[in-house]
């Protein structure tokens, strides 16, 4: 997928709950939020663990960023597409090995080649000086 030059991409707004995630992505590190007491992972980020209701056991832990495509949509017409992205493009919902699911895009893969169940691994895309996004690449074999 490619972005359209000249159209700024809206940047994620940082707050105290999501800042560690986006700052890690900027450093090309992939982290997930986890409760250190329950060992459960969460997405999107939240201030409290819904299992043990603790606010001080929530931590950010490194992830290998591996998983599989759980679902996807393909944008093929301008009417519904994000103006900053060239059509056609696909958006994937990746289920990570840790169990949480994240929206992203596939690098180096045409929309027609995306399939549910396809194994993927995280990659990083430096869009400009202030913005890095996490993307996924197809894992071969």
């Amino acid at each position: 997928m490619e972005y359209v030059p000249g159209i700024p991409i809206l940047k994620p707004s940082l707050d105290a709950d999501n800042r560690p995630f986006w700052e890690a992505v900027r450093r090309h590190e992939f982290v997930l939020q986890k409760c250190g007491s329950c060992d459960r992972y969460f997405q999107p980020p939240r201030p409290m663990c819904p299992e043990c209701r603790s606010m001080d056991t929530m931590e950010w832990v490194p992830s290998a960023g591996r998983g599989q495509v759980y679902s996807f949509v393909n944008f093929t017409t301008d009417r519904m597409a994000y103006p900053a992205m060239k059509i056609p493009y696909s958006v994937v919902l990746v289920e990570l090995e840790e169990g949480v699911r994240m929206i992203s895009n596939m690098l180096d893969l045409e929309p027609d080649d995306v399939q549910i169940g396809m194994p993927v691994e995280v990659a990083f895309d430096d869009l400009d000086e202030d913005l890095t996004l996490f993307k996924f690449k197809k894992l071969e074999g």
Partner: protein
Amino acid sequence: MASIKDATAVAGIGMTGFSLDSGRTEYSLACEAIKAAADDAGIDLLDVDGIVTDVSDGIDAMYVQKAVGIDNCTYASDSHFGTAPMMNAVTAIAAGIAHTVLYYRSVNGSSQRRAGSDFRAAKETKDNSLDLIRYDFYHPFGLLTPEGSIGMIVRRYLHESGARPDQIGAITAVCSEHAAKNPHATFYDAPITVDDYLESPLLVDPIRELDCAPAVDGALAVVLTSAERARDLRQPPALVMSVAQGTSTGGELLTSYNRDVISALPEMRLMGSELFETAGISPADVDVAQLDDRFAPLVPLQLEELGFCERGQGPELCEGGKEIRLGGRLPLNTNGGFLGEGFLYGANVIEAVQQIRGTSANQSSTADIVLVASGAGGPADGLILRRQGT
């Protein structure tokens, strides 16, 4: 606790025409619909002492109140999604907080506000509300419009259920059959076949153009009052047997991607079980249903979640349209639904009342009990209406 069952009734309904470009303000449309609803009920607007509307609409109740001539209200409440304000109205009347409550919606949904179109403006004004921050995990990857967001759920649903395009297309076709006979509908006299559906272009694969209800400009209003008072008014009352809402953990509006099963509507299941329990009836007792067909592929799921069929049987129930068209086992969306009439939550309530009164453009021969459900893909809400004396 005050009981909801049969305590209140819809006494009046009003609606403007639906169009793609009204050329009018939402304020003006709201006033027209409200006056029509009061005239229909045969009440003076000065009798209204409660106002409820949808928080996402543009016309605040205070402005409505000064234009249509409502003096004093002891109850005012905005609510989100579907027809949730109906529950506020019913509970306020049942609790004795207000006696006559007005529910209205007014949206230039086609010419002025497209779903999702306000997003960039909101972001650029640094509105960092939690709901916008949630989208930061979606929009940088090009996922923003409702069709795209729900497409992710629908893809998974189609993958898991094996529902066929012709089974989904039967829903659009039946709704268009009903709309073709409803002069108020966007698709009046313009029937769509399953073949048309199958040839319909993909907006966001797997969502086809004919999977989606057309956005329209229009307004509607409903007058609710106690069942006792409604019996003395102009129209036969549509008694509210039950009203309910449902939310569920892991839920987001159209983007509930982090729950164990995403191809389900747990909010709708919870809401439906509450509806039936309060009403003291079962799904088999429902004569007509107005389900949320903003997106056609979510209709079979609603049939399953509401208990009209077993889990996994929704597509089969829709197949061919025989069971869900007028005259079938469970006629659905007899005004044409959002798919055929146009997308404005609340229009499903208006049509349910028409069925109860026996005045629908597609009148069912049996319409003693009518169910309304809204909010497929997010927080759900609904109500069950019945005809008096049944």
